[in-house]
């Protein structure tokens, strides 16, 4: 393509965006809002999934041994190809962990607390146990059922609710995210195509002249697509410029005040996310303007 042609097309596109000042502003802010909601949703969903997978990774089955059971024999019986590892925990250790887990630290160290507890109760309330880590957290219920049938096993426990809930929640968020995402995408496309249709209307004389002097349809389209891309680009950039600082702030706040929540945070991931938002804007901009043009150019 010739330099003059490129210059002409860019100039026409830019000109259209500037000349339709208010409409352009409306389009940009609509795109920004849509992408803001979309982006916020994606970040939220990603974090829930992240937490769910952290939880799922940490999920174990606790197999409490009957009194006098042979730990090695039970371990042997529990092994299969879906088990990642089995960690034997003797009674003292189990008590210490229980104390830590429940925040019952009466003394400055958990060893000391455990000794105090045994002294108070006259015996160790915690049995020796085995911790089974599965290859795949989804196998936990099945593995737990198998473990219940093994000789020398007194009780099988796992954090059924927590794991199940998080996995369900992650799935729910993913589904609703996709639904809301599609709605937002359609809304954005409509906004941009409407904007472009307004621009087309404002410039119908110019288009008519272009057609009369022999401009091809794609040549007529390009400036409008450029206009749509500019709208989308600006909207995406604004959305990114709003979402990122807010997210950083939330991450910082959570990091300081709610330490049990571990949010995704890496400069690289966030830059990638910002680029994705802007690209989304660009793609929506181009697609929206093509939609807006489609009907019009067929008519004439």
């Amino acid at each position, binding site marked *: 393509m010739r330099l003059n042609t490129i210059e002409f097309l860019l100039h026409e596109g830019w000109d259209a965006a500037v000349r339709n000042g208010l409409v352009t502003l409306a389009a940009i802010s609509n795109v920004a809002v849509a992408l803001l909601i979309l982006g916020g949703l994606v970040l939220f969903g990603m974090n829930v999934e992240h937490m769910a997978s952290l939880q799922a990774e940490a999920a174990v089955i606790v197999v409490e041994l009957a009194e006098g059971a042979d730990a090695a024999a039970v371990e042997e019986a529990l092994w299969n190809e879906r088990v990642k590892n089995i960690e034997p925990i003797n009674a003292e250790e189990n008590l210490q962990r229980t104390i830590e887990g429940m925040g019952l630290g009466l003394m400055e160290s958990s060893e000391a607390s455990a000794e105090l507890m045994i002294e108070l109760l006259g015996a160790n309330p915690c049995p020796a146990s085995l911790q089974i880590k599965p290859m795949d957290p989804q196998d936990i219920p099945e593995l737990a059922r198998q473990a219940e049938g093994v000789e020398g096993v007194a009780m099988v426990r796992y954090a059924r609710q927590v794991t199940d809930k998080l996995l369900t929640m992650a799935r729910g968020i993913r589904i609703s995210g996709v639904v809301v995402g599609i709605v937002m995408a359609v809304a954005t496309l409509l906004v941009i195509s409407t904007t472009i249709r307004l621009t087309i209307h404002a410039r119908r004389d110019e288009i008519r002249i272009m057609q009369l002097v*022999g*401009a091809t349809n794609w040549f007529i389209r390009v400036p409008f697509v450029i206009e749509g891309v500019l709208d989308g680009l600006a909207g995406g950039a604004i959305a990114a410029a709003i979402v990122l600082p807010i997210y950083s702030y939330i991450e910082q706040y959570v990091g300081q005040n709610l330490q049990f929540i571990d949010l995704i945070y890496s400069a690289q991931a966030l830059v990638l996310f910002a680029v994705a938002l802007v690209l989304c804007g660009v793609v929506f901009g181009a697609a929206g303007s093509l939609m807006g043009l489609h009907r019009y150019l067929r008519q004439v």
Partner: protein
Amino acid sequence: MIHLQSVSMIYPDGTEALRDVDLLIERGQFAFITGHSGSGKSTLLGLIYRDMVPTAGSVIVDGQDVAKLPPRRVPFLRRKVGVVFQDFGLLPQKTVWENVGFALDVVGASRREKHRKVPIGLELVGLADKGDAFPHQLSAGECQRVSIARALVNGPSILLADEPTGNLDPDTSWEIIQLLLNICQQDTTVVMATHDREIVDRTNCRLVQLAQGRIVRDAKEGGKYDAP
């Protein structure tokens, strides 16, 4: 050059604008199309530059049946057929130079081509010194000259003019006709729809008269507006 064969045009709303029209216009000829308002003059021109497709018949332009032209080829027909209207159709925010250059931009011309051809076009219509003016700074006659320059700048072999003098006073109209006759001399076929009795009678050109979508008279040369 332009050959209409058994052409009928019925608009989607059922209006019959042309009925069984046969018309042959040779290369380099100058032809007036006259007739009452609503007789089908604009429709006839519209068929030639493929603004619409006839309901029946064929419209041969430059050896090609325009009625069968696929839409994506239409722009290339339009580069061979310049059009001019009563209302000039200039872009108000562009200068005269830019308005003429626009026709070149739109067909993907290079900057050098543009700088070569625009001055030639402006020279041809006698506006070489008005390049920097905006349309609102020009007289109606000058605006029509700019629109003629724009129609010609891509070097079409046919120029269609639909009542180009409709908005002009008699003297200015006559100047525009002189210009169109000049253009015709340089081997461009010119077809002009008009109501202007005086112009037709003063020029001694071919005259095709329409009435209710039919050709009722075709005076090969020296046709007078009112039949003798």
